[in-house]
């Protein structure tokens, strides 16, 4: 049984009005195992719209979404139950913080789900530690006193505290400095390995996608035009560039080297992997 599946999902903003936009166009995919899925695509290709469909925030114009085999778009399913299972972290989630304390904000989700008080406290503590913040230090602080990166992590903790089965993040690293950026990436890895859930995240940063994803969706004009492992997707560099996307730096460099040394081969997506391949290549050349 699939964890999540969509069939011919189509969505039109402002139908028959000025500004009519077909944001999704017959999107179908299915995920069977908990893993990390990265979504890339040009701005306006429909990534955020897709995520919002997956937990029932937007009702599709046509097509269906199935969670654990159950259809959530036929109007019969209680959407509150759906949102309990699927956490969505919006872009710039720190703008949605509102409570006087970090703990107060994180508790908002679990409370809405009607979780018993004694369990709630546990969950809040676990969620805050999970995102790499120190509970005793930040719990009673105002979220507005935190640094940008910490605010973002506090906001993500608010969703993790709901203990979803699927976690979706829309551009979780947008607008962060390199250190905070790396913290978020490490956090996503940690959450996936410790909670063993399905993570779907959108990013414009190809290194993040290459580093984290087990599977990559490439979106263009509301369609999924590529769906495969990061190695597969990034080996189609020319097609990606045509869509206004790029490949991870390691791929870029490997391509340049190949222009000078046609015999050079590297499938590496990370700089470390590329360095190894270059070393090997040099060893072979020296022997010859």
């Amino acid at each position, binding site marked *: 049984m699939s964890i999540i599946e969509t069939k011919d999902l189509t969505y039109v903003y402002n139908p028959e009005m000025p500004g009519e936009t077909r944001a999704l166009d017959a999107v179908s995919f299915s995920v069977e195992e908990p893993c990390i899925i990265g979504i890339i695509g040009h701005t306006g290709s429909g990534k955020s719209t897709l995520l919002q469909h997956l937990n029932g925030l937007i009702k599709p114009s046509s097509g269906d979404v199935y969670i654990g085999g159950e259809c959530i778009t036929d109007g019969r399913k209680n959407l509150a139950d759906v949102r309990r299972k699927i956490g969505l972290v*919006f872009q710039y989630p720190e703008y949605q913080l*509102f409570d006087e304390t970090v703990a107060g904000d994180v508790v908002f989700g679990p409370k809405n789900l009607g979780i018993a008080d004694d369990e709630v406290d546990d969950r809040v503590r676990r969620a805050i530690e999970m995102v790499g913040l120190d509970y005793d230090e930040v719990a009673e602080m105002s979220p507005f006193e935190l640094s940008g990166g910490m605010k973002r992590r506090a906001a993500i903790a608010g*969703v993790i505290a*709901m203990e979803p089965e699927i976690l979706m993040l829309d551009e979780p690293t947008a607008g962060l400095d390199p250190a905070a950026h790396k913290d978020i990436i490490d956090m996503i890895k940690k959450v996936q390995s410790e909670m063993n859930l399905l993570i779907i995240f959108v990013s414009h940063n190809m290194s993040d996608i290459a580093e984290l994803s087990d599977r990559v969706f490439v979106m263009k004009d509301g369609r999924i035009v590529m769906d495969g492992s990061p190695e597969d997707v990034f080996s189609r560099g020319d097609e990606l560039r045509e869509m206004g996307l790029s490949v991870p730096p390691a791929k870029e460099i490997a391509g340049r080297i190949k222009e000078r040394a046609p015999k050079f081969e590297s499938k590496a997506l990370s700089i470390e992997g590329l360095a190894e391949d270059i070393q090997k290549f040099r060893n072979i050349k020296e022997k010859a």
Partner: protein
Amino acid sequence: MIRDITLGQYYPGSSAVHRLDARTKIIATLIYIVALFVVKNFWGFLIAGAALFAVIEVSKVPVKFIFRGLTAVFMIIAFTFLINLFMVDGRVLWQWKFLSITEEGVNRAFFMAVRLVLLIIGSSLMTLTTKPIELTDGLEKLMKPFSKIGVPSHEIALMMTIALRFIPTLMEETDKIIKAQQARGADFESGNLIRRAKALIPILIPLFISSFRIAQDLALAMEARCYHGGSGRTRMNQIRFHRGDAIAALLVIVFLVAIVLSRFINVPI
């Protein structure tokens, strides 16, 4: 939902109505509103309605689009209608306990409702066919004479431009925050009044913070581009009256005369 409100929206187009000078449209709308209050019987509304319909036809704004804007203020219209229906004294047509409907009440209720609908459609037609920028430019020019007696016409116009410009932005922001809190299981629809009011806090606080952030960014951006108030400021696009404006003015006069004459028609509709 929240995006359906068309009041103050602009509908892009290049019709004769769109091309009119903003000042012409502002004055014509003011005259139209005054005329609606001059009207004494349904003949007057027939003329006003026909005139409005003609302008809508020329402007090529879809009727459907205009009526969608009306649904947002439907409650106000319904409320006015009911108040008038039950509150006016006269020849009783129907009675139930303390509630009574009179012939005069029915007349008045329809009269007020029609007036309100025409009023709303008429004024939204102005914003639908005029770019916000042109609208505020027009207002500023019209208010110019009053700046001699200390009315800050430029500042008022600028404030209006900014307010109009940020209505869609704030709506988008609200939409986003509502969705984000919904994703965290927030429920805005059930519970009693106090619970529902409380449920708004997670929306209002982030919205306030966003507004302040947007306002601050805007102020900085304006200052960075050397904005220093209205004195000595010139315009890139000068607005001018054209032949169309003269024709429009003529039509408005004809309309006004017709409305005044309609007061003297004694045949009931």
